[in-house]
């Protein structure tokens, strides 16, 4: 994979290429690596993954022509939101002070406060003003009208949690069609 990603030193890359010119077994393995890399690229670009991303990632996606729908509710407040059929990426910007946090979890709760999902130990930059989370666009397009609450919590070495910020998303379904499922 490092060879395919151009992550090897020049000397190591030369060694790999000499070997690949004589070894079809390793050529077959490389074809498997390429297939995996291509599928991962397609998956990453599909917007269907829930994942913490960077500001540069969002900017680059927009520059390359993707329709990015962003919501940035202030800390402790709520926002009305939806997705359109032609949106490609759905992004939540959660304003937060991360300077004193080492481990941060992102918890997704229903309006009763019941946690439905926890993204544990998300990647953070201490100097960042927000956490950017890509929500699955596939999921959002099929989601019924519902309210979700995102909570950023700092977790210390003993497992004790401290709330860093809470953000409420009132999602309104605007894409017609049967919902197929309901939030509990």
């Amino acid at each position: 994979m490092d060879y395919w990603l151009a992550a090897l030193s020049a000397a190591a890359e030369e060694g790999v290429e000499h070997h690949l010119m004589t070894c079809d077994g390793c050529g077959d393995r490389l074809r498997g690596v390429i297939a995996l890399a291509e599928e991962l690229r397609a998956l990453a670009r599909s917007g269907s993954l829930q994942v913490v991303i960077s500001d540069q990632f969002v900017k680059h996606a927009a520059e390359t022509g993707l329709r990015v729908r962003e919501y940035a509710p202030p800390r402790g407040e709520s926002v009305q939101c939806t997705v359109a059929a032609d949106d490609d990426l759905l992004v939540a910007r959660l304003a937060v002070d991360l300077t004193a946090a080492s481990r941060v979890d992102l918890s997704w709760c229903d309006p009763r406060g019941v946690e439905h999902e926890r993204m544990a130990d998300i990647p953070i930059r201490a100097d960042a003003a927000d956490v950017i989370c890509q929500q699955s666009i596939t999921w959002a397009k099929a989601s019924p009208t519902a309210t979700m609450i995102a909570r950023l919590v700092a977790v210390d070495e003993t497992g004790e949690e401290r709330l860093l910020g809470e953000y409420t998303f009132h999602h309104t379904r605007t894409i017609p069609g049967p919902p197929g499922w309901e939030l509990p």
Partner: protein
Amino acid sequence: MYVGLSDAELAPRIAESDREAEAELCRRMGPRIRLYGLRHLRSPSAADDLVQQVLLKVLEALRTARVREPDKLAPFVLGTCRMTVLDLRRSSQRQGELLARFGGDLVPDAPPQPRLDDRQLARCVRALKERERAVVVMTFYDEQTAAETAGSLGISEANVRVIRHRAMQQLRICMGATP
């Protein structure tokens, strides 16, 4: 009967215009050249073009006995790949001219690309830890380097490499491959 011949045994036969030996060389080297092309040109069609151009150059060199060390045919092919890719990068016009002259003379069959279960892969990626998923998405979305991903996520470049390596191992296992 030529399948079992070594590269060094094929070379003199090609110098004697043995078409079957030429076909065996194309069958043997074509997929290897294509992999080199995919890695360096990032395009299946460009890789196919590279196969044609490199095979033409190698065959011409063998026919005119310009390959001094026939037992080192693979390094010669690799060197020709490198020079051709450099040429392609220098002049896309020249590429067009070469293809106009020779395109279609050599059309090797590309080996079938392995097909993956994309739904299973999505499940496997979702099962990764948050940092691993973030690194995988940023790496493959636009082939970001480890340094770029490190800068985006606020972790060291070495850490990105470790996380990526671990994630890829997990994905291979999850997809049913040997780690």
